[in-house]
């Protein structure tokens, strides 16, 4: 017996061509693309509104997806700031080395806040004709034989010709139907973030930015107490997103302060504190991030089912860039295209053939490289110590440069550097 959500949906339909679970970027991109092409679809979102459960660091790399949604990026698109400064800080116990690339990056990227961005994208999808139902929690997928034929919401079953799962990094729906075993801690990272309100003027003054321009900074080393992960800072229009990412596999031999204290320690570092001064925390968020790269990719389809975005493990961390949202948007787009063409089973091929599949393949060795502990607990401190000695003029005689170099980088250390970094040749 199938009941329809007659009140909520105005008794429109008992069976949908497409049901999309999750109104994040991947789900909404799929809904928007389908609706534009005239395919009816229903998006089910467990939050109060689209974006209520979404979190980013975060920055959206726009170029890879610009042409897939060519009419989306108008004046009303809630991009926070165009990132024109890229920073990397190697953080020692005391002292930090910061590098900043100002300008020169040829492709545009923007800081965004997801509650705002996803809500806007949901409006766009609705305008195009998609149906979005919020506060609707899908507890499981419904199977008939080997085929996924619908979803369960409360006591009701909604049937669909095709179900698109976009329920995020911890996709219990795909796990629930045995599409994959529970995602391993090796392929996930925990991200925590504070949004810190600060006026436009202060942000632009502190980061030396023109109006509308933004800065991004990544931190590595002591920021995670030497654990695999890093810190990040993004400037939004009137706030700063500051947070940490720690690989979930680090839990097994965790020697550092508890995660909330680690974030507080990061905030109180002198080089960070001065950027945040006078700001007020307005939200504290946490989310899982797929970090397995190529190896972390999950099955993209099953009969009657397509999986998009984080739920499919589509994300790529290169250490200096962290991507997931552009992959989410693009995978949602390709899922929609495959459905429109009546060939949903072609979706995995489309993903493999587009920039997502190519990037993940080209950088498949990156996850292993980044998993080396010395990148976090050794090199940042090493570089900071070496430079601190160079810049120290003591009372009396100054050491010879070569003496300082050999103290910090004896032959065995140089050999280790070679060994640790040679894996990069494969990327």
């Amino acid at each position, binding site marked *: 017996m199938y009941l329809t959500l007659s009140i909520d949906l105005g008794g429109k339909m008992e069976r949908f061509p497409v049901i999309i679970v999750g109104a994040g970027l991947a789900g909404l991109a799929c809904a928007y693309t389908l609706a534009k092409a005239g395919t009816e679809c229903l998006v089910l979102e467990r939050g109060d509104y689209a974006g209520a459960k979404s979190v980013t660091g975060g920055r959206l790399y726009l170029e890879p997806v610009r042409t897939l949604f060519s009419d989306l990026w108008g004046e009303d698109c809630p991009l926070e700031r165009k990132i024109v400064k890229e920073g990397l800080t190697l953080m020692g116990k005391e002292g930090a080395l910061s590098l900043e690339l100002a300008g020169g990056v040829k492709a545009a990227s923007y800081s965004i806040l997801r509650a705002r961005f996803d809500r806007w994208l949901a409006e766009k999808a609705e305008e195009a004709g998609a149906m979005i139902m919020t506060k609707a929690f899908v507890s499981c997928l419904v199977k008939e034989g080997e085929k996924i034929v619908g979803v369960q919401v409360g006591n009701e079953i909604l049937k669909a010709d095709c179900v698109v799962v976009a329920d995020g990094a*911890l996709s219990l729906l795909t796990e629930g139907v045995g599409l994959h075993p529970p995602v391993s801690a090796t392929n996930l990272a925990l991200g925590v973030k504070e949004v810190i309100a600060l006026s436009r003027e202060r942000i632009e003054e502190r980061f030396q930015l023109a109006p509308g321009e933004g800065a991004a900074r990544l931190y590595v080393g002591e920021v995670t107490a030497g654990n695999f992960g890093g810190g990040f800072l993004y400037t939004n229009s009137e706030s700063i997103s500051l947070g940490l990412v720690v690989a979930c596999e680090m839990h097994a031999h*965790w020697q550092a302060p508890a995660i909330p204290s680690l974030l507080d320690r990061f905030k109180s570092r002198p080089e960070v504190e001065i950027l945040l001064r006078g700001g007020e925390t307005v939200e504290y968020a946490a*989310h899982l991030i797929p970090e397995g790269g190529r190896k972390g990719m999950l099955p993209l389809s099953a009969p009657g089912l397509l999986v998009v975005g984080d739920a499919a493990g589509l994300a790529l961390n290169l250490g200096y860039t962290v991507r997931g949202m552009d992959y989410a948007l693009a995978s949602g787009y390709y899922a929609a295209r495959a459905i429109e063409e009546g060939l949903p089973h072609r979706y995995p091929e489309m993903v493999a053939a587009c920039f997502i599949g190519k990037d993940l393949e080209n950088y498949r060795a990156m996850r292993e490289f980044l998993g080396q502990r010395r990148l976090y607990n050794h090199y940042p401190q090493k570089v900071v110590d070496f430079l601190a000695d160079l810049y120290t003029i003591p009372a009396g005689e100054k050491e010879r440069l070569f003496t300082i170099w050999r103290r910090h980088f004896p032959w065995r250390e140089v050999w280790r550097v070679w060994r640790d970094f040679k894996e990069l040749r494969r990327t």
Partner: protein
Amino acid sequence: MIEEKLAKNVFKVSEHPHLRIKPGFEKDVRLRMMVMFCPAGLYREAEDGKVTVSTDGCLECGTCRVICGTEILDWQYPEGGLGVQYRFG
């Protein structure tokens, strides 16, 4: 303090806790790890070594489910419209 930070968030509290430690596993080493790893600081270890969890303030990241697994935890997302509602995200 973590409580002050969580107080900035919008939560819609559910009557049914969406996560629960399965009886008999309260002293499991994986739960002890969550005392350090839970971003909302919701896992506490008592003097007798038993770990308890509160769901008030849960950010629904799912880290504990990934680390502890379903053998130890009953973990499900909260019902529709409940739990944390990010205003910035």
